C-alpha cells in the first residue's frame, strides 16, 4: 500500500518495548513469564504462516494477521483469549481486510488437519465469535503498514537488489518478534538491509549516511534480530511445550 504511513493509525499506535512486554495478570497468576509470553506469540506466528500456506494467501496477509495477533496481546491475556483460536481468527480477519477473503470453512478444515488434539480444534462459529472480540480488541483499527514495499524500494535505490532474497527472509523472521508494533516499517526494512549487507560484506556506509536515517535505531533493531537468532539456537520446542503447558493450567 502506498498510502502515507505518517498520517496513519498504525503510526499513532506504535508502542514502546516496555508497553509490549506486559504479561497480563490472569496469565501471570499461572506463573507465566515474559519469556513464555514471547515464545507463544512466536509459535502462533508460525501457526498463522502455516495455515496461510494451506489456504494460499499472500505474504502481506500473513504479516497483517500476525500484527493483529500481537496487537491483541498487548491488551488481552492469553488465558481469556486462547491463542490457538486467536491466531486463525486473525488470519481470517486479515484476509478480509487485505481484500483476499479466505472462507472460514476452509480455515476450519485446515485447523483440524493441523491438530489432532481435540481442544485446539475449532468450528466456524468459534472463529466468527472470536472475530468480533478481536475487532474490539484492535479497537477496529485494521490498516497495517509493512516493511516489504519499503524494502524493495530501498534495495533498488541502493542498487543492491542482489540482497533481496536474504533481506526478505530476514524481514519474514522479524514477524516472530514484536518489532512491527514498535518501529516504523521502513526502519525495520533498513535493519534487514543492514544485516544482509554486513553478512554479504557489502559496503553500505555511504548509502546509509546519505539516507540520514537514525542509525542507532537501525542498529538496535538489527541487534534485536541477531539476539533472537541466538536464542533460537537452543532448541525452542521444549520451552514452547512448557509454556503452553502453563497456559493450559486451570487458574
Amino acid at each position, binding site marked *: 500500500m502506498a498510502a502515507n504511513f505518517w498520517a*496513519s493509525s498504525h503510526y499513532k499506535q506504535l508502542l514502546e518495548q516496555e508497553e509490549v512486554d506486559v504479561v497480563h495478570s490472569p496469565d501471570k497468576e499461572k506463573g507465566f513469564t515474559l519469556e513464555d509470553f514471547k515464545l507463544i506469540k512466536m509459535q502462533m506466528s508460525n501457526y498463522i504462516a502455516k495455515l496461510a500456506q494451506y489456504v494460499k494467501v499472500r505474504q502481506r496477509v500473513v504479516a497483517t494477521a500476525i500484527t493483529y495477533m500481537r496487537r491483541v496481546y498487548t491488551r488481552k491475556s492469553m488465558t481469556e483469549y486462547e491463542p490457538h483460536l486467536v491466531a486463525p481468527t486473525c488470519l481470517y480477519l486479515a484476509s*478480509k*481486510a487485505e*481484500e483476499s*477473503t479466505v472462507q472460514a470453512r476452509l480455515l476450519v478444515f485446515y485447523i483440524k488437519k493441523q491438530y489432532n488434539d481435540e481442544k485446539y480444534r475449532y468450528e466456524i462459529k468459534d472463529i*466468527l465469535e472470536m472475530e*468480533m472480540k478481536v475487532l*474490539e480488541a484492535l479497537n477496529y483499527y*485494521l*490498516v497495517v503498514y509493512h516493511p516489504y514495499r519499503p524494502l524493495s524500494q530501498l534495495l533498488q535505490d541502493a542498487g543492491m537488489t542482489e540482497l533481496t532474497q536474504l533481506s526478505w527472509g530476514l524481514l519474514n523472521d522479524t514477524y516472530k518478534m514484536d518489532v512491527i508494533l514498535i518501529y516504523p516499517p521502513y526502519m525495520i526494512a533498513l535493519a534487514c538491509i543492514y544485516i544482509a549487507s554486513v553478512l554479504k560484506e557489502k559496503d553500505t556506509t555511504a548509502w546509509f549516511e546519505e539516507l540520514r536515517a537514525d542509525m542507532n535505531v537501525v542498529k538496535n533493531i538489527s541487534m534485536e534480530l541477531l539476539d533472537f537468532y541466538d536464542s533460537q539456537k537452543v532448541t525452542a520446542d521444549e520451552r514452547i511445550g512448557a509454556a503452553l503447558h502453563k497456559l493450559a493450567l486451570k487458574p
Partner: protein
Amino acid sequence: MLEVDQLLSKKVADRYLKKEVLGEGTYGVVYKAIDTQTGQTVAIKKIRIGQYKEGVNFTALREIKLLKELKDPNIILLIDAFPHKNNLHLVFEFMESDLEAVIRDRNIVLSPADVKSYLQMTLKGLAYCHKKWVLHRDMKPNNLLIGVDGQLKLADFGLARIFGSPDRRFTHQVFARWYRAPELLFGTKQYGSGVDVWAAACIFAELLLRRPFLQGSSDIDQLGKIFAAFGTPKPAQWPDMVYLPDYVEYQFVPAPPLRSLFPMASDDTLDLLSRMFTYDPRQRISVQQALEHRYFSSVPAPTKPALLPRPPRKGDSLTSRPPDLNVQEGPTVLSPPRKSRRVMPQREKVEGDAHQADRVDDHFIDVRQTTGGNTGKSETMPMSIDFSVFGSRPPPRPTLNSADRSHLKRKLDLEFFPPE
C-alpha cells in the same frame, strides 16, 4: 419528556438510546439514536452478522477499515463501533439530509454560489481521500450527506479501496452507472483517482441541471449518452482507449458546444466541467487541481455552508407547513420529506414512529410509480429543460441493489487478486 423518550426508545449497549429507523443501508438497518454521554444525535448502522456464515460483512469491514483512517470535515465521521447481541453497530454522526434531496427539491433554488459551495465541499472530501490513497468508487448525490451545519460529507465507503499499488487490478463494476467514467465502461481494470473525478463532474452537472446528467439505461447506452454529450473520442484524444478490454467502436458523433448543454453556466464553470469530463484519464484534471481552478476563486464566492438552501426537515414538511399550492412548482411536490436515500419501501411498522414512517413510505412509493412511465419521455427532452414545468420527474436513478452488491462482492473477491 425524557422519561417518555426512554420508554419509547430501546437502549442499545449502555450508551445509546435507540430512536426511529432512518432506513435500510447497504448492509443493515440504520436508525437514529441519542448518545447519552454527550447528548448528541447519532446514526447507528446495525450490521447483520452470520447470515452467510462469513462473519463481519466484507463491505462493512472495508468501510470500518477506511473510515478509521479518514478524519476530515468533509468525510462522514465514524464515532464508535461496538458489538451488541451478535450484531456489529457502527455509530456515525447524524446527518440531516443528502445532496440528492437538495437537487430534487423543487422548492429549492440553487444559485451559482450555492452550486460552487456544494461542489467545493465534495471535492475537498475527495481530495482528502485521494491524498490518503483511497478511491471512493461510489460517488453519487445520495452518498453525499449534509449535516445540521450545512457541511457536506462523503459517506458510504463500502466500495472504497486503497490504491496506489502498481499493477493491482481492480474490478470495473463500481459506481452507479450514471456516474461511471468511460474507462470503467470500457472495462479497464487498472484505474486511478480519475474515476472519482468523472463522477464528481457528473454531480457538478447534476447540480447545474437539477437532474442526472447522463442517464444511460445500460452500459452501452451510457457510453452512447456520454459520446452524444462530448463527441465520440478520437484516438488522438485518448490513445489508450482502443486497448481497453471491452472497447467497441462507436459511430462518430461530433461534440455539440458545451454551452448548448449548460446554457446558464459561466465560462469558468464550463472550463472546469470540460477538464473534469476529459476522456483520457491521464489528462483529466486531478481533484487538487480542480480545487485550485479559477472557478473557485472567481466571483461569486461559494456560499457559506450554514447558509446553503436545504430541504425541510421531516417534522417541518409533514406537520407545521401549510399546503403549498404554488402552481409554478408543478401540481405535486414529490420530494420525500426525509432522506429518501436509505428509505426503501417497507411495509412493516416501524417501532416508535410508526405513523409517520408509514406516511413517508406511501409517499415514496408514489414517487416511484409516477416516475416509472416517464423514462422514455425525458430522454427526448432538451437537456436544459426543467422538469418541474411539466410536473413530471426524471426517471428513478439506478443504484446498486442488494443483488448487485452480493454479485459485486463475489466479483470483488475474485478479481482483486488474479493469480500472481
